């Protein structure tokens, strides 16, 4: 160093400056007077829609965004009212929430936990959002859920299928309308047994991250309970785009069913590879070879095109259901955007209405009041049939759809056909089920 001379005066001066710098922050510790985080005081209330607008799940995210905008319109009494007319709870009047006009802000999660938290934080800190809705990945959902718990706002999770979201990572301020991997397994197993018999040998290819593992665990458990045998489970890196090297060994493994625990682009690529290898034309152990994709979405089905014909999977909701809620929602979505909504869009739409309804019933935007109103809430008319928000883990319980890639689609959106609507009793599990154990819901945080 060039300047080594330390003088008494220099030290004193430096010390004084450093001391002032250190002392400064303590002036600002007084907390504000609001009763809870972002209490809406004006004539409007702001909701935060945090969805992937870029990255691998951008399409899902944009569909969610459209549905959320539609929900806001309906809450404010514009448009045809959609599911407000079919919802069994009649607290919502179409005059906003508690008389306040609903406004929204949007953010981009980029399907990255960090970016999602940053954008949720900016909505909470800058825009004064009282609730964060949406998203299309379990990792992001868990990360944002943790943030909302700390900040004292409500979180509604969007598309998240891993058991952990309402399992070991559950939080009191977070709710999930989507189904989970355990439910997929429980719903699929009987259909698999009926279609493929009870003596099958399954080979799993699994995306190598939390969601993939919980799904693999769930499917393995429920198929083995049927009497199936699991030949092998292979983890594939999330960034893979070519699965040929993983498909080739399947043929010689003695397996006769391939289970693809993949989602989004991964699933489209792995399924395409499997079809190219002619797996579906093969006969193994004297049986026709089959492929199962436990978690389906319309957008993935569209991406995989011809290849999904006859492939079984499960879904949260499908626009082809015939109940009143679904019809009302599909009608207003279709009229506004010219296409049917995806199941993640329906989830986000329903969540916005449910949140608004819970606020109306609680008579306050206070997160603790909302949590109380949503816990154990039973309703119908939003498209999923009779639905329960369970108080113990904030997981939603409703019927699960088993679907199959349509053999003869009549139009571009008719890619999946519903095989069975699995009743809710069959997919219900105890809150302390081992696959969900280890978490702590904690108590609601209002940020006060």
């Amino acid at each position: 160093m060039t300047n080594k001379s330390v003088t008494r005066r220099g030290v004193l001066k430096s010390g004084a400056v450093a001391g002032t710098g250190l002392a400064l922050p303590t002036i600002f510790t007084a907390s504000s007077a609001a009763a809870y985080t972002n209490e809406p005081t004006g004539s409007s209330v702001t909701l935060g829609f945090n969805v992937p607008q870029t990255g691998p799940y951008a399409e899902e995210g944009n569909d969610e965004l459209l549905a959320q905008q539609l929900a806001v319109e309906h809450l404010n009494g514009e448009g045809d009212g959609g599911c407000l007319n079919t919802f069994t709870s009649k607290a919502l009047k179409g005059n906003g929430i508690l008389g306040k006009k609903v406004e929204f802000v949007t953010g981009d999660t980029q399907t990255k936990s960090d970016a999602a938290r940053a954008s949720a934080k900016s909505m909470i800190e800058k825009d004064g959002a009282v609730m964060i809705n949406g998203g299309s990945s379990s990792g992001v959902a868990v990360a944002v859920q943790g943030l909302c718990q700390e900040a004292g706002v409500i979180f509604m999770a969007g598309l998240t299928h891993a058991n952990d979201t309402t399992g070991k990572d559950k939080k009191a301020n977070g709710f999930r309308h989507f189904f989970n991997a355990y439910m997929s397994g429980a719903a699929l197993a009987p259909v698999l047994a009926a279609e493929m018999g009870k003596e099958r040998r399954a080979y799993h290819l699994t995306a190598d991250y939390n969601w993939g593992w919980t799904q693999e665990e769930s499917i393995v458990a429920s198929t083995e309970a049927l009497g199936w045998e699991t030949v092998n489970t292979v983890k594939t890196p999330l960034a893979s785009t070519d699965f040929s090297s993983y498909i080739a060994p399947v043929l010689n493994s003695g397996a006769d069913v391939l289970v693809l625990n993949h989602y989004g682009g991964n699933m489209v690529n792995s399924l395409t590879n499997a079809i190219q290898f002619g797996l579906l034309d093969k006969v193994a152990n004297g049986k026709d070879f089959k492929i199962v994709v436990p978690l389906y979405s319309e957008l993935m089905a569209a991406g995989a095109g011809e290849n999904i014909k006859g492939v079984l999977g499960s879904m949260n909701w499908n626009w082809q259901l015939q109940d009143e809620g679904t019809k009302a929602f599909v009608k207003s979505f279709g009229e506004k955007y010219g296409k049917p909504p995806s199941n993640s869009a329906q989830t986000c739409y329903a969540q916005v209405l449910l949140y608004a309804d819970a606020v109306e019933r609680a008579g306050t935007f206070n997160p603790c009041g909302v949590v109380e109103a949503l816990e154990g809430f039973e309703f119908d008319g939003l498209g999923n049939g009779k639905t329960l928000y369970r108080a113990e883990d904030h997981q939603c319980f409703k019927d699960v759809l088993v679907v199959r890639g349509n053999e003869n689609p009549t139009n571009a959106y008719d890619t999946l056909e519903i095989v069975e609507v699995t009743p809710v009793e069959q997919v219900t599990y105890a809150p302390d089920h081992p696959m969900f154990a280890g978490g702590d819901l904690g108590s609601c945080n209002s940020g006060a």
Partner: protein
Amino acid sequence: MFGLNKKDTGLLIIVGILTLLAPFILNPFPADSAMAQFNAGYPDLMQRFVIFGIFAIGFNILFGLTGYLSFGHAAFLGVGSYSAVWMFKLLSYNVIPAIALSVVIAGLFSLLIGYVSLRRSGIYFSILTLAFAQMSFALAYSVLSNPKFNLTNGETGLQVYADDPQILQGANAPDLPHLFGLPMRATYTLDIGAWSFDFNAGYYLCAVVMMVVFYLAIRIFRSPFGMMLRAVKSNQQRMNYTGLNSKPYTLAAFVISGMYAGLAGGLMAAMDPLAGAERMQWTASGEVVLMTILGGTGTLIGPVLGAGFIKYFENIFSKINDNVLHSWFAILPDGLEDAVVFIIHPFIGKGWHLTLGILFMLVVIYLPGGLVEGGQRVSNWFKRRKSGADDAPSGKTEPAE
């Protein structure tokens, strides 16, 4: 003051004033006005400005002085974050041990990677660092998050759970990161008329840390050690031929900048107790390169400006959606309004990358010295207008230190 010459002291004081008054400077528009969209003075973004400023200052010590372009610096940031969250999990929510450990671990990690990577220079060095960083990312994302040995918690990100040991956590200590009881989340909001300013404890901790490391960076730049690093940049071969072993110098610079990155990572975790693997991805490493180049490589203040610039775009422009546009242009006739919104649409919201890319191209083409060069040109222009044409431009970019 502090052993700096007059010019550097001035720079340090300016940076100090800017960081301490940031809540005012970044919130120039009244909270209810349409322009409030462009306010950046909320705690999370202010923290990010400063933290990425630290990251970029550290990166600049390596890249700006020695010319070694590391494409894997995000790995150190990620390692720092993971160490900090582990400290929260094991010890307590106090941020001091967390930040200290994050610096130490990132230092050790960069020593290891630097020792191997610095055997090569130029593009080979960049590729080696990139490879190490991607390896760390893959390790964090899947390998080290398996149920048997869960170090990173994979895609979900490492976070603190209620059943973690936290052996030093006091009975009534806040249940979130704090500095001896002062929660990092604590914010005092000052309302003056239509304006509202947020003073956040976490931000001021970061700001003070940044002032300290900025001062350290000035000292490094001005020291004989810094001179040696510059010599490496201008002609390493000639240095070696004179019989001088330059490797200890480059390795030291690499470790120092790794520790800066670790510090930034630790602060990030202290502001928000979650560490995600995406922090280590190559795009994150590329981002700090962009920040440094955008601001001005080899200058002191440049990287901080670049960091602020990119984070502003990421957080403010990405949140402008069509509804906001329509409300801005509502006074125009309907057809024209739609046309204007249609033209601007690709550049906002999810198109913020595009806007940033265009600006980056403009800066690199017209201001090769980064934003700092832009500032110099403007100030030179003013000077010339004042004093006539006596000091003609030298035609050469000079760092703004």
